[in-house]
């Protein structure tokens, strides 16, 4: 299985490595002083040099991302469950969710900082929660409600209760879409946390690290932190995929062409 995973990852790794080499070579020729865009080797050097500081910053940001993700997922799932169970909830909460999503959430960051204090991580978490909530809500509620008529009629013929139908049909039916939303949400969470950190929150975060280094023209250091943030996003994506495999065993061996 590991061999298979390695084999399927090989093209992506090759492409990435090729791109990095190309990037390195082109910049060596056109931009040897590295002012506008540093070379990959320079970024790597900076990453190693500032490793402890960047790791600590990643820890701070990672905490925001994880807690915000968990909060946003919980909110999205509960909201979707309510909407799928009760017509009145659907009529009230669905428009509210849409309205919430229409707010440019990042624009709230300075306002949240005023509420929670400039150095408090709470405002950053709130941004992440709001960003994550919507895709989770939309996909999960779609999954909970898109159950076939035959399946529902069968459950009706077994005299199943509403909650039994939710538990045995709607929730499993929603799993694939929920995990799709989780993958979207995990990258949104990283973006949201870092941009929120540009405006405030703890000083030892990736967002602040980028802002401060960029302000003093230390672009290579800023890039090193961007690399750390990307790594976090990629890790989260794969962790989501791992959860998905565990939670949806029936989809593991589907043999599809393409």
């Amino acid at each position, binding site marked *: 299985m590991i061999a298979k995973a390695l084999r399927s990852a090989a093209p992506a790794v090759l492409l990435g490595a090729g791109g990095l080499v190309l990037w390195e070579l082109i910049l060596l020729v056109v931009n040897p002083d590295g002012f506008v865009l540093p070379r990959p080797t320079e970024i790597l050097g900076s990453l190693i040099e500032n490793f402890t500081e960047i790791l600590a910053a990643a820890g701070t940001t990672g905490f925001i991302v994880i807690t915000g993700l968990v909060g946003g997922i919980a909110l999205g799932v509960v909201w979707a469950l309510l909407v799928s169970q009760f017509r009145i909830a659907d009529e009230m909460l669905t428009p509210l969710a849409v309205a919430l999503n229409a707010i440019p959430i990042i624009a709230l960051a300075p306002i949240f900082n005023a509420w929670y204090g400039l150095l408090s991580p709470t405002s950053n978490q709130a941004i992440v929660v709001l960003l994550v909530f919507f895709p989770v809500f939309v996909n999960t509620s779609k999954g909970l409600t898109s159950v*076939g008529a*035959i399946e529902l009629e*069968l*459950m009706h013929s077994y*005299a199943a209760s509403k909650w039994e139908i939710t538990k045995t049909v709607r929730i499993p039916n929603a799993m694939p879409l929920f995990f799709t939303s989780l993958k979207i949400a995990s990258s949104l969470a990283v973006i949201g946390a870092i941009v929120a950190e540009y405006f405030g929150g703890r000083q030892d975060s990736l967002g602040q690290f980028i802002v401060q280094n960029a302000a003093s023209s230390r672009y290579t250091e800023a890039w090193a932190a961007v690399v750390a943030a990307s790594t976090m996003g990629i890790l989260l994506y794969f962790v989501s995929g791992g959860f998905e495999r565990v939670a949806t065993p029936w989809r593991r061996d589907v043999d599809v062409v393409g």
Partner: protein
Amino acid sequence: MTGHIQGSAAGGVAASAAVEISDLSKVFNHGKPNEVHALDGIGLSIETGSFVSLIGPSGCGKSTLLRLIGALTAPTDGTVLVNGKSADQARLDRDYGMAFQTSGLFGWRTVTQNIELPLQLMGWNKLDRKNRAAEMLELIKLPEFGDHYPHELSGGMQQRVAIGRALSFQPSLLLMDEPFGALDEMTREHMQTEVLDIWKKTGKTVVFVTHSIPEAVFLSNRVIVMSPRPGRIAADIEIDLGARTFDTRESQRFFELITQVREVLRFDEDSR
């Protein structure tokens, strides 16, 4: 033109009736421009333990009649009694096993888990569920496929699982709406033999909707021929083929009965 070959349906309420339908009508979208008079004045009594097929042109209300019996939709007029109670009470008492043209298996459950689903909802314990599922797998001749997911099975196998699931809790009435409609001719005949086999073993009352005249004749004690707009019973034909064997499909009587059903359908077509 009713009464062409009318059976005993209009007679008194038999004590052993599994289904007793009187003066049943169904109108969809009442009072709207798209109003459909799907069924009109249906009277039908189905004896316990019998195998009854509903046949007729597309849109004549076969599925609607089956759904009314199964309490999946409510009548506009008239009554449906199942085992002496209202259809909805029968549903709450879990008197129905249902199978449709598509299997309606749950893709996230293995074959065994699909068969166990109704049992689980009825509060059976794990061991009883497991034993019953194993029995059902024997009955539908898929003993090795318990741990497979539905997508790993052929269409015919999926239909067998759906039938096994419908029978798992031993409902007294089996309602099937074109369960073999999507299968090829060979598989279909094979499945017919199996369903008859299961019917003989379990003694259930079966109401079976089909488009195929030979299928209706081969399977049933009684074929109800329906005519459309509004849906009515055009004929009620007793099938006296005796025990079905390999030769039944080639017997003289089989062809005579097929012709008889076909003529009702054709006469009905011509007369409108």
